[in-house]
């Protein structure tokens, strides 16, 4: 799977469009979980809906293509992912999915509705049988199909919706903040369920969107950090959490609060300021107004991509550091080692 130069803007009545996703590209191999992390308003959810649904009256896809199973789709021309792909090849687990259940019908009916929407020949008994087999395969009780949503806990509802949204064995599951309304124990259970879905080869790829980097580091194989509609850094989970390059990634890692000894004794500083207005993003690097390392060039020119296509950061400061390293600047290496230690 590959996404190339995706652009999706929200039209506004007056003035320029909101550039929620602006030139996003990534690849996703079989068995991989790509995590997308960033603060609210950085375009994460827009990315999720463009990849799994399509344009809406206000959201316009301004460019980009999706390559999946050897087929390339021009998302701009098609106005999104082809209808027959939705749910079957690309499935969305939306934000607050657990509240998408109909409170007056049983979970089993919901599973039937989902299957019928994609295959009108399917009958109720078959659908429920398939759902119950799938639940058992994943170690969940099949009796939930007889329950009404209010009889299940939030965590269980979320797991059940996850299972139902993958009943058609989609190639890719796009999970948008699937854990944000759950407590820690339910979060862990959901992460284990998603891993199980990959192991059982029900699905082969996951795009996991969240603002919780700590949780993400426990499921993602690779992580893309988004800021103001763009990917500012991408790499393996290991690279991102142990050797973050981009100042924004560093700030995210730095502000995670872990219940570990010593955390209480030092003061952790967060980022100041707020994310930019995406109608008029800042010139040059979009992060420069909040960046502790901002230089003059950052305010003027778009930052370069430093690194390879699978591991890069877009930043002038990183570029300088890498160049300094290449020149064998010993001091810098020592400082860097001290920083990562």
């Amino acid at each position, binding site marked *: 799977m590959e996404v190339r130069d995706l652009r999706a803007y929200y039209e506004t009545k007056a003035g320029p469009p909101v550039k929620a996703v602006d030139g996003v590209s990534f690849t996703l191999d079989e068995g991989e979980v790509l995590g997308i992390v960033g*603060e*609210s*308003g950085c375009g994460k959810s827009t990315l999720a809906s463009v990849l799994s649904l399509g344009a809406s009256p206000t959201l316009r896809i301004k460019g980009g293509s999706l390559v999946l199973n050897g087929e390339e789709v021009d998302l701009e021309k098609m106005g999104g992912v082809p209808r027959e792909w939705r749910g079957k090849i690309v499935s969305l687990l939306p934000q607050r999915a657990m509240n998408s259940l109909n409170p007056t019908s049983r979970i089993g009916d919901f599973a039937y509705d989902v299957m019928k929407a994609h295959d009108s020949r399917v009958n109720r008994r078959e659908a429920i049988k398939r759902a119950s087999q799938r639940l058992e395969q994943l170690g969940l009780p099949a009796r939930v199909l007889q329950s009404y949503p209010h009889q299940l*806990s*939030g*965590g269980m509802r979320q797991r059940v919706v996850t299972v139902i949204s993958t009943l058609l064995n989609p190639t890719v599951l796009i999970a948008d903040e699937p854990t944000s309304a*759950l*407590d*820690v*124990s*339910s*979060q*862990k259970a959901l992460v284990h369920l998603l891993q199980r879905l990959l192991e059982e080869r029900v699905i082969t790829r996951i795009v996991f969107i969240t*603002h*919780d*980097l*700590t*949780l993400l*580091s*426990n499921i993602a194989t690779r992580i893309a950090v988004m800021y103001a509609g763009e990917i500012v850094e991408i790499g393996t*989970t*290991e690279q991102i*959490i142990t050797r973050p390059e981009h100042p924004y990634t560093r*700030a*995210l*890692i730095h*502000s*995670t*609060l*872990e*219940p*570990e*000894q010593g*955390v*209480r004794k030092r*003061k*952790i*500083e*967060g*980022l*100041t300021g*707020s*994310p930019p207005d995406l109608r008029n993003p800042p010139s040059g690097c979009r992060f420069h107004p909040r960046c502790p390392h901002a230089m003059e060039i950052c305010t003027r020119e778009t930052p370069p991509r430093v690194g390879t296509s699978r591991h890069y950061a877009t930043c002038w400061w990183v570029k300088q550091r890498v160049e300094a390293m290449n020149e064998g600047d010993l001091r810098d290496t020592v400082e860097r080692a001290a920083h990562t230690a």
Partner: protein
Amino acid sequence: MTLSNEPLTLLEARHLTRIFGGGENEVRAVDDVSFAIHPGEIVAIVGESGSGKSTLARLLLRLLEPTSGQILFRGEDITALHGPRHLKTYWREVQGIFQDPFASFNQFYSVGRVLKKTLDLSDEKLSRAEQQQRLELALRNVGLDPTDVLKKGSHQLSGGQLQRVMIARALLVDPEIVIADESTSMLDASLRVTILNVLSELRARLQMTILFVTHDIGQAYYLSDRVFVMYHGQIVEQGPVEEVLHDPQHAYTRRLMADVPRLGGWGAKVAAD
């Protein structure tokens, strides 16, 4: 022997209980909870969703009637008071900050208007200039620029800015206690730290007492002195935060600790050290 060595109790709960529904559907959301909070303390109430943390917070704010039990503020039984007229004094001393600042902010009001209305809770007769001074001071206390935000509405502010306005609002009437119910949950990590630092500074500077309700042990550990662990409506474990998290006694606390996500792993590391 004098009593001065004994920590004073500011807020006390005695056998506080709140039951929802009845018969088969009875839910004991808060079940026989007792504790004492001292001036200047930061206490975290942690637990999973549905454990009764928020119900407890709402009982303590007197926004919800308890089924039985008492709440004592400086020794006075607050549960005996009913209605806004009698509770006004209490509400001046005990202020709440909630999870979603957009939901608790009247979207047709400017920041200045919301803050002025809170100031009306105060019995003091203030001149316009004095009022303005108070508003500006409260906003500066939480790191906001009054000239920038006073005229703005909620839609013109980010979640983090608005949550800081809500903290400023709570501080306007100079309360003894702030009860923050998941006030930082919907914020991004970097902003969350900023808000926690604001709360921590307020305690250091103004000797404020803070009751911090959260499901995130990481935040509880960073901010608080003591922690109450709630499970099924009861406080199953309480003590100094280091102690509870270093050596959890109750099985539920241990499970909670084991499920905490860390960067590249699960489970809090405190216990392992």
